[in-house]
Every structure is written in structure tokens, then in C-alpha cells.
């Protein structure tokens, strides 16, 4: 992977995005409908530890994101 790109994983799917881009961009790159649902509050995005992360959250090379039902 070149230095100006990051590889991140959304629900296990590998996507390549420009460095400095955020959680929302990884969703858009993977499947824009995931971003639309997360933006509407119908999906939560979690990191590899299961913590909720915001759509504007930072990413790093190798980051893993998972989408799921929001917490009650």
C-alpha cells in the first residue's frame, strides 16, 4: 500500500481510501447505502473493540469497522 493511501476493512471488506479520510469515507467507499443509513442514525459504526465511533472519526491503515444496530 502506498504511503498516501490507507487500507481499512468495513464489515470485513477491504477498501482503499486516501490517508486522512474518516469513518464516513470508508463507508462511502465500501457501500454508500451504509453511510446513508449511519448518517440517518439507523446504523451504528463500531471499531474492532466494539466501541461506537462517530462518522467523523479518524482512521488508520488496517482499521476495522463494523456496522450494526444502534444501542438502545
Amino acid at each position: 500500500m502506498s504511503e498516501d493511501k490507507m487500507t481499512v476493512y468495513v464489515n470485513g471488506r477491504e477498501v482503499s481510501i486516501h490517508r486522512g479520510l474518516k469513518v464516513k469515507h470508508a463507508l462511502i467507499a465500501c457501500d454508500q447505502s451504509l453511510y446513508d443509513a449511519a448518517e440517518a442514525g439507523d446504523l451504528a459504526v463500531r471499531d474492532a473493540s466494539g466501541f461506537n465511533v462517530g462518522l467523523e472519526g479518524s482512521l488508520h491503515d488496517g482499521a476495522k469497522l463494523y456496522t450494526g444496530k444502534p444501542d438502545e
Partner: protein
Amino acid sequence: MKKFPAVLSAVLFFLATSLFASLFAPAAAETVDLTILHINDFHGHLMPTPGKDGKPGTGGMAYIAKMVSEEREKNPEGTLLLSAGDMFQGTPISNLFRGKPVIEAMNRMGFDAMTLGNHEFDWGMDAFQNLRKAAVFPFLSANIVDDKGALLPGVKPYAVFQKKGVKIAVIGVTTPETQYTTKAGNIKGYHVLAVEKALPPLIEKVKKEGAGLVIVLSHIGLDEDRNMASQVGGIDLIVGGHSHTEVKTTVVAGSTIIVQAGYYGNYLGVLKITVDTDAKKIVQYPERRILRKVKAGPNDPFDADVAGIIKKYDDQIRGEFGRVVGETRVDLRKRPFESNIGNLVCDAMRKAARSEVAIQNNGGLRTSIPAGKITLEQIYTLLPFDNNLMTMDLTGAQIVDILEYNAKTEGMLQVSGLRVVYDLAAPEGSRVKELSIGGKPVNRSHIYRVTTNDFLAAGGDRFGMFREGKNAVVGDDIREAVLDYLKKHSPVSPRIEGRIVVTP
């Protein structure tokens, strides 16, 4: 000789041995209870975020302030209030006044320290320094330095607080991503050191100066905080930000505790720790209930003074939105393929980024503007999304691919710096009949500097070709680029001039 009764003898023997034991046994550990309150990635969210489906809102600085006061009352001598950065940029009320309302609220709330996030530089160095000077608490960052190793003017590497007899060192660190996630030039002359290089000498220094507790106030993201804890010894606690993570159960990496309180002030981090003052370490901490939801319902208490600060600025927004920011001699209208409003926005993007080509999606342009004076509100309505410029290298062939896909979308893109002629009757993939960039026929192997927005740069609207670009850098908010263009060029009269020609 009078003899002691047996019971009395036993009591005296017990007292004597107890006294002996207390004199010669090791002293019991001296501990103090401290409360660390924290927020991060607030991004100007002074007002509560409305709840979904009629549920009460969350966040809002006046509600946070009330919770902070209540926590301070429980531990008045042992509480610290910290911010892990990215406090200002992100909402109209904060952006329009360049973060001033946030600083006023933070001063009123008695923040003890704040670390610098990458977005602290979004409005340039002058705006950043204005905020720094307005703050009555220290701005911290130990790893933004110039070529001689000097820190930013007025910024401290760390601050020391004395709480219940414990000397607490709070060291600030900022993400190295700052170099490419803020507009080039905003931190001109400075670079961001890796934390594993910047921290060890500082930790050694503060410990020599008697620090009983070392806190790193970090804006590098949770996973990077974990790496930092494993690579740098001597950190007791990391209060983090940048990844917008709701760390609801305490993260422990080696002997370092890591916390982070989500984003936008939806949570207040409340970490209650017990510190052994002799061993100089945290001996007790909670594993859960370390984030408190900031509830902003009609019956939830709020701080009236902070609410007053917010109201003062909110009352001014109407006037600010009505401010004239430019003028157009023609109606600015959006339409598929080329439009004059698209030409205006793309010209502004290209000028701001000093690139050869600019490309913007029609979906990001949300209104038309009639001829006459243009207000700030009209620009916010035209460009409601918080999109940033992204400028990257693309080959001529990649630009052709983008424009071919544009033909499939029936004209979603607006452009500047290029001229394209389409034959929509031609088969898919061969509809671009002519393409010139900068007035010259496109060279398919030549690399062009192309500006777009972050949505398209991520492959939005299926324009995945932008993800193939190289050397991408983040620029200004697109609104800022358009405002700057209008300021310099008004009155404007953009027209449809044959940038995108559709045949037959």
C-alpha cells in the same frame, strides 16, 4: 503485691502488642481520590444534538457545564477538567465566530488544559493564536515543532497541577496527520513529531520534577493511544481523542489506562481514580460507567451562565447569516451537465487549491441564487454539507474515465479547467469525443492536479476513480473557498460557456 485480674492483663497485653505492631509494621499506603473529567472532538457543538423520533436531545455545553459543576462538588480539591482537542470547527455558531463562543464557554467552565487537535488549525494560524490568547487555560502540544525544535508560540508541552498533594503532569500530543488533514500552509514552518520520539524525555523531566501522576492528553486516536502506551513507559493515564470513540469500558494497555469520550459533547468522561501517593501510581479505577450521557431534555439541568454565552452568539447568527458576501449579475441556476452555478463553485475550488482542474458533484449544490446581492445564508443553503476540498494527482486517462462515468449518470459533474465534448449516442465507454485541459488536448499519460470534494474523493456516487488518485491533500471547507472567491471577484456573472458540450 496486688495482682492484675486476668482479663485486665489480657487487655494490656493486646494494647502493648498492637502498639508494637503499629510502630514497626510498614505504614499503610497513603491514597487520594481524584476525578478526571474530559471531553474531546466537541467540534463546536454548543447546542444539543436533537434526538431522533422526538426523543430528548443530547450534548450541549450548558448541560455539560452543569454536570461538571456537580462532579466538582463531589471532589472539590481533586478534580481536573480536560479537553483532548478538536473543540472549535464544525457548526455555524462556532465557525461564524471563529471558535470564540466555545472558548468563552470553556473559560467559564474552568477547563484546566486542552491539547491541540488537527482541526484547531482549520482557520489558519492567526485564528488559532486568537483562540489561544483568549483561553485562560493552557493549550498543550509537545510534538508540534519548527525546524529548530521550538513549539508553537504560547503553546506549552505540559502543565502541572497540584491536587490533594499529588503533583499531576498533563502532557499534550497531537496527531502527525495534522500535516495533511489541514490545508497546506496552515501550520507552515512546523511539523509534528512522532509521539514515541517526543514523549520519553518529557516524561523523564516531569518525573524528576516530582510528578506523582503522568497524564497524556492525546489527540491521536484510540488505536494509536494503545501503541503509544506500549511503546512509551511511564504514562499512567491517556485521555484521548481524534477517533471519536465512545470508550465505555476502561482500556488498559500494560500499566496505562486509556479513556476517550466519544464526540460532539454527547458524553462527559468521568474517571474516578485512587492514587497511591508513595508508589506514585493509580491503584484503583472503574472498569465501566466512565462515560456519562449528556442529557438535554426539557427537565435536565443546565448551567445558566454558559447558556447565556451561547444565547448571546446564537442571537447574532441571524444577523451574521444576513451579511452580504458577494453579488451576482445573473441568476445562478443548477442543471444537469454544465450550469453557471457549477462553473462558479468549481472555479472557486480550483483557485483555492491552485490546481489545474476542479470537479464537483451536482448533488452537493442544493439551491439556485437569483441575481443581486448574495448573503452568507444563501451560501450555506447552496453548500449545506461540510465538505472539504481534496486535491490529488490523476492521469489524463483517469480523468477521461471519470468523465465517461459522468455520461452514464446523465451529467452529475460540474467542472473547471477542462472542456469536454460528449456524444451520448456513442456506446458506453466511448462517449468522450474531445477533452482539453488548460486549453490543450488531454495527454492520457500526463499527471494533472485535480481538486474535488472529500465525498467524491472517497468514491461517492460511484465515482470510485477518484480513489485511484495519488498525493491527495485536504484543503479548505468548500464554503470558505466560494466565500473567498466571491470576495475577490464580485460582482460575478458566470455563464454556460461550453465546458461540457453534449451531442447529439
